[in-house]
């Protein structure tokens, strides 16, 4: 199986995946009907995107790969060049008693892994704006960077589906209920070579630069989000 790094992905490639509602209401905290949100949010979005383009703030990179894997009970074992890693996942105690491992075959399956980032400049430019008293710009730039990191992850998930020729499945980011153990991040980052796109994991298992997203990509048609 292979891991690849792709750098310098054009903003226009993933901008269409931007979840505007999540940005305007969720991150920026604006309130109102969808029309009101758009009326307030869209001009600000356009203004910030112009600055992002002129200053080259968006520097999108992806480290990803497809890996042989199989499931054993509540665990998924992933093969890589150096050996294998084993990740265990919690199982729901009621409802359908789902566990992530249920969406991986007991043998001969393939999963995707990715780490994506929109780069370190968002924090640097934001800090400069804050120092200069541009508080609203600073705050909204931060939200935009986070939202674009998610958009990039969505875009790349789609790319990975196309590459595999399978238009099904779900992507999961560590830390969310179905896969709460953040310590698995270190393994994931290592397997895809995230350091080669400038992304590192801190002792606290956080991604640096901040506007980065990791994901485990499963192709099982029944795979969906759930909470144990």
């Amino acid at each position, binding site marked *: 199986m292979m891991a690849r790094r792709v750098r*310098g992905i*054009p903003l226009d490639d993933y901008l269409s995946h931007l979840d505007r509602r999540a940005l305007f209401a969720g991150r920026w*905290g*604006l309130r109102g009907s969808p029309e009101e949100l758009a009326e307030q949010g869209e001009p600000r979005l356009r203004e910030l995107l112009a600055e992002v383009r002129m200053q080259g703030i968006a*520097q999108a990179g992806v480290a990803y790969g497809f890996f042989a894997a199989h499931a054993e009970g509540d665990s998924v074992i992933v093969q890589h060049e150096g050996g294998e890693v084993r990740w265990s996942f919690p199982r729901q105690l009621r409802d359908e008693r789902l566990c992530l491992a249920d969406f991986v075959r007991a043998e001969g399956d393939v999963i995707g892994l990715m780490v994506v980032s929109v780069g370190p400049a968002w924090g640097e430019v934001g800090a400069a704006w804050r120092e200069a008293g541009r*508080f609203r710009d*600073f*705050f909204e730039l931060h939200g935009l960077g986070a939202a674009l990191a998610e958009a990039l992850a969505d875009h790349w998930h789609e790319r990975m589906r196309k590459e595999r020729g399978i238009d099904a499945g779900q992507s999961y980011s560590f830390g969310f209920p179905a896969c709460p153990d953040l310590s698995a991040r270190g393994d994931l980052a290592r397997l895809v070579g995230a350091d080669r796109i400038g992304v590192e994991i801190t002792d606290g298992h*956080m991604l640096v630069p901040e506007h980065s997203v990791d994901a485990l990509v499963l192709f099982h048609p029944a795979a969906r989000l759930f909470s144990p």
Partner: protein
Amino acid sequence: MSSGLREVLGREVIIADGAMGTQIQAARLRPEDFAPTEGCPEILNVTKPQVIEEIHAEYLAAGVDAVTTNTFGANLTALADHKIADRLHELAFAGARLARHSADQAGPGHWVFGSMGPGTKLPSLGTVPFSAIRDAYQTQATAMLDGGADLLLIETCQDLLQAKAAAIGAQRAVTATGVAAPVIVQVTVEPTGTLLLGTETRAAVTALAALGIDGMGLNCATGPDAMGEHLRQVAAALPLVSVMPNAGLPDMTDDGAIYRLAAEELAQALAQFVEEVGVAIVGGCCGTTPEHLAAVVRRLAHRPLPARSPADSTAGCVSSLYHAVSLRQDATILSIGERTNAQGSKAFREAIAADDLDTCVAMAREQARNGAHVIDLSVDAVGRDGPADMARIAARFNTEQTLPVMVDSTDPATVEAALECLGGRAIVNSVNLEDGGVGLRALAPVIREHGAAVVALTIDEEGQARTAAQKVRVADRLIETLVELGFDERDIIIDPLTFPIATGAEETRRDGAETLRALQAIHAAHPAVGLMLGVSNVSFGLAPPVRVVLNSVFLFEAMACGLSAAIIHPGRITPLDRLDPALRDAARALVWEQGPSDALAVLLGAGGASVAASAQSTLPVAERLRRRIIEGNKAGLADDLEEALRTLTAAVIVDDLLLPAMAEVGEQFGAGQTQLPFVLQSAEAMKAAVTHLEPHLAAAGSADRRGQPGVVLATVRGDVHDIGKDLVDIVLSNNGFTVHNLGIKQPLTSMLAAAQEHDALAIGMSGLLVKSVEVMRENLAEMNARGLRIPVILGGAALTRRHVEESLAPLYAGEVRYAKDAFEGLTILRELSSAPGNAAHDGGP
């Protein structure tokens, strides 16, 4: 000589050579060899030709098909730096002759690529004029074609405007010499994914493909691994693709840059580009050697290429220096901002007259903000030097805003002045047939040479076409003429003219309907051609609020008839369902010249009272300042503060006017009446006000701002999140507290040290992670063990009020409080600062 290249180009892979610079260094030349310059590589073409020939021979011996001339710096700016710009022709010619001689020695089927580098000054940065480098490029290209070059390779381009100058210069040389050499342009994409000046690949492809070059590619900056995505974008639009990567990203050592990519790896990567992307010309840039190219030759020599026809032409696309925009927008029209027009906008006209280019740029950015896709730029005004004005403003619009520009002028000198300042792909508005086509044929070559799209107005020898039949006839003629002159239909936009229909004049009543019918007919006959209107004209003469109604209705009716673009005020179009139904219906009736005949009267009668002039300036200054803070409005703040200072001290202004206003903002936020972005805007106004007052506060020596109560803020050890903490910093700082923001991953010791040093009122600990709650627990236990009593405020997504109050507070003898947001933190701090025992803090705000 040269003619054989076109027969193999695109049919089999052509392998070019590698780096010249490192090979020159390896030749261990002495400074004298470069006389009279200090290290100009091109001088060697005449002082040490045998060295250059040997380098060519080495690459040819490795098996390459083409050698690149030692003329990368044989251009205006690079030679001017060496003070030998007058030797440009001589050095370019000599370089080509050397390469020609070497190639001929290697036998038939060996080619000479004439290298044209970017020079040392970029026209987009205003440091060298376009026409100067263009003409020098023509000289260089002519010299190299005379010297035997088979192909002109414009390489390492970082600025689209420079690339355009080189491409035009090269093409002029091809035409003048009659040597049909292909012209290839290679751009340099930085590891960040754009060109140095921020150009996205698709914008580069859009702008360069329109220049009629033969092919495009990438070279330099990175190794092959970073190039794949960009090459795909090039291959989608250009028939010939080239790539010449560096041997990886260099390690910067004491011995200089060391490139680590091995020969086999380069060969493998280039083979993949050929197979997967259809690249037709490969080579190497910095760090590549004859060994590298030998490996490439082993893999790819004479590899046949399948025929390619790019699927994703850039016809119908325009661009700024930054990004590309399609002239056909899905589900909506292309919105062309009308305000930066000296005839249509008094504000713009006055800004130009006052040489206030910052305002001109601000007006462009404002339109982008309001949703314009393209900016219309018109500077034609009586009594001024149009081309000079246009050049100054277009140069600023090139880099300081991100929308493609529609150059609005019919004067060739003005149009050319603009196009020589715009690196992206522009639109020229406009041409017509009023003089039978003389003017059109005078302007068309300039538009074609710069690769711009074109707007054509339905005006012929009989004047402005008024009926649908006339408009269609003139449109047909315009399209035929333009296509004959080489324009692609998708790059042609017809404007069938908009006349005011609400002036009451009888003869204008039908103009709306005639225009709409013309749109339908032209769209049916020429579906690939764009259709545009200057919408605002339709409502000339009506009161402003009614103009919005008529403009909006007319626009939407026109869209239904096939309109694809419109020059509008982007903020002033209203969706139909939000218009007053009576006015909307009257407008529609007027536009289609159907329905009640009193439609015009309805519109003329509406218009209402003009918006009552804001009584802003008649409010007392105290109230004005309060509103500025609450509304976050900085414009004119300084004037209001100066007025207030006439009767109040700076300290009173801050304490009695500004801080209470900020407190009001906080209350509004707490009550859900305002949101964080607006709170921050208020904080900006507050900070701007306090900054303006600083000199007065210091001078008066009163209420030493440094005596404001201080608070220490930090994100705990192991946690990198700080947006929440920084928001708290902003809110507290602008509500009368001095914040010592230590940053992220802070151990307890640094928080305690800072608290002691600044005699802080409290320590605020922030953290996002679940783990950080544990760290806070440990911190509190430690502080307790040390017998400390300074209040601690805890915040962050992983905390709950209950957890803080029930599980964490009991660990510490001092106060422990939970703040769910910055304002709760502010409330807590105010309580703490006015508590007894804090008398030293001046009562606090």
